[in-house]
Every structure is written in structure tokens, then in C-alpha cells.
């Protein structure tokens, strides 16, 4: 009574697991109008999660226009990195909040 589809399903699960085991999730906090850590190294495929601890809305906006993540007060937002390079980003609402992501291939 073994259904024939069990093997592809297991294979799918295994490959899914192996992908998520390679990719890391990196947390960056926005607290009292500061991005910390301000310099982070990551790899393509990693997820960056910004945790906004402030009562203010923030954004994580790439200067090169690649991405713009909205971070409502006391909420988090995340992004899967798709492109290698050094990306400077800032908060559009509070441009003094600046940081850099270095993304390896």
C-alpha cells in the first residue's frame, strides 16, 4: 500500500530543507533611530529581517533602487537577497539612519 507519489514528496522536502539550511536569516534592529549593526555581510539567498523597535515608521531603502522595505512601528519586515554587491541603504523618513549590506554571491 505505498502510494507512488511518496518519493517525489520526500525528495521535495529534503531539497527544501537543504536550501533553508544553507541560507541564513540575519536580524538587524532599528532602535531609537539607529540601525544596528550598521554593517552586515550576507550571501545571496540569505534573508535579512529588520526589526523596528521604534514607535516610528521606518523604511529600509536601497540607494541603488533595488529594494524598499516598509517597517511600520514595532513591526518587522524581511527581504531575500537576490543580487550580490555592496548596497547602501537608509530610512526614507529619517535619512540620518544609514547602513550597508555587503552581499556575497
Amino acid at each position: 500500500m505505498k502510494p507512488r507519489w511518496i518519493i517525489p514528496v520526500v525528495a521535495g522536502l529534503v531539497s527544501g530543507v537543504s536550501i533553508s539550511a544553507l541560507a541564513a536569516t540575519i536580524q538587524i534592529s532599528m532602535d531609537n533611530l539607529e540601525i544596528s549593526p550598521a554593517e552586515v555581510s550576507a550571501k545571496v539567498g540569505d534573508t535579512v529581517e529588520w526589526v523596528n523597535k521604534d514607535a516610528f515608521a521606518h523604511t529600509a531603502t536601497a540607494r541603488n533602487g533595488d529594494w524598499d522595505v516598509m517597517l511600520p512601528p514595532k513591526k518587522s519586515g524581511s527581504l531575500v537577497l537576490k543580487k550580490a554587491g555592496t548596497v547602501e541603504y537608509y530610512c526614507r523618513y529619517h535619512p540620518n539612519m544609514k547602513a550597508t549590506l555587503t552581499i556575497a554571491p
Partner: protein
Amino acid sequence: MFVRLSAAIAAVSLLSGAVMAQSAKPSDPQIAHIAYTAGLIDIAAAKQALGKTSNKDVRSFAEDMVRDHEAVNKQALDLVKKLNVTPEDNDTSKTLSKNAAAKIAELDKLSGAAFDKAYVANEVAYHKAVDSTLETTLIPSASNAELKSLLQTGLKIFQGHEQHAEHVASMLK
């Protein structure tokens, strides 16, 4: 240039004059009232601008003012509630409100680029005045640590507003 400068001087002298009119250093309930009132004034000014401007940069600046000042004032309300403090009206708050009403009426007569320039010039001056009052009077006078810390966060965010306003002003030249 003359208009901007005179607006700046007027706003700074009105605010510092208002604070100095109070002989003793303000109490925490008075500080809370002054800070909250100052926030309300900037929200009202921004809402006036949103109703009048068609300039993209001015609009986005005004939206930032509403968003941030409402967030600070909400935190202030939460804090006074938590501390069980009733904000206390005082001469500084009264002078601030009176001057702000006059400014709203003055700006209401303007439109287009003239309004944009006058609004942003006043925002530069107003944030300068508020920041300096926070730094020299309100923060040093606050006795409650949480109130002091909220005022410090406010100062940080308002200094950003001051820079933002200056940037918008330079683009409107």
C-alpha cells in the same frame, strides 16, 4: 531671503521668549504639556500644507511631520497615562498656541510657491526653536527619567526634521 530670515527670527524669539517668560523651571506636567502642544502645532501646520501645496517635496515633508509628530505625541500620552500625570497648561503652551494660530492665519493667505516657501521656512525656524528649547530647557528640567528619555528621542527625530526642512527649503530657492 528677508522673508525667511524674519520668519526664523520671529519663530525663535517667540518660542524662547515664551519659555523664558516662565520664571521657574517647568515641572514635569508642564513639560509634558509644552511638548505635546508643540507637536500638535506642527501637525496642524502640516495638515494645512497638505491641503494647500501641490509640490511633491513639500507634501512628502508634511506627511513625514504628521507621521512622526503623531507617533511622538501618542508615546507622550501613553507615558503620562502610565505615570498618572495630568499635563498642566501653562504660559509657554498658551503662547505657543497663540503664535501658531497667527502663523496658520498668515500662511492661509498665501498660495502656490509663496505658500510652500513660507511654510518650509517656518518649519526650519520652528524646529530650530523647538530643538533648542528641548536641549536647553525641557530636557534639563525634566525629572522623570522616562519623560527625559522621550524628550531626547524627540530631539533626535526633530533634528532630522530640521535638516529635512532645510533641504526642502534649499530646493525651493
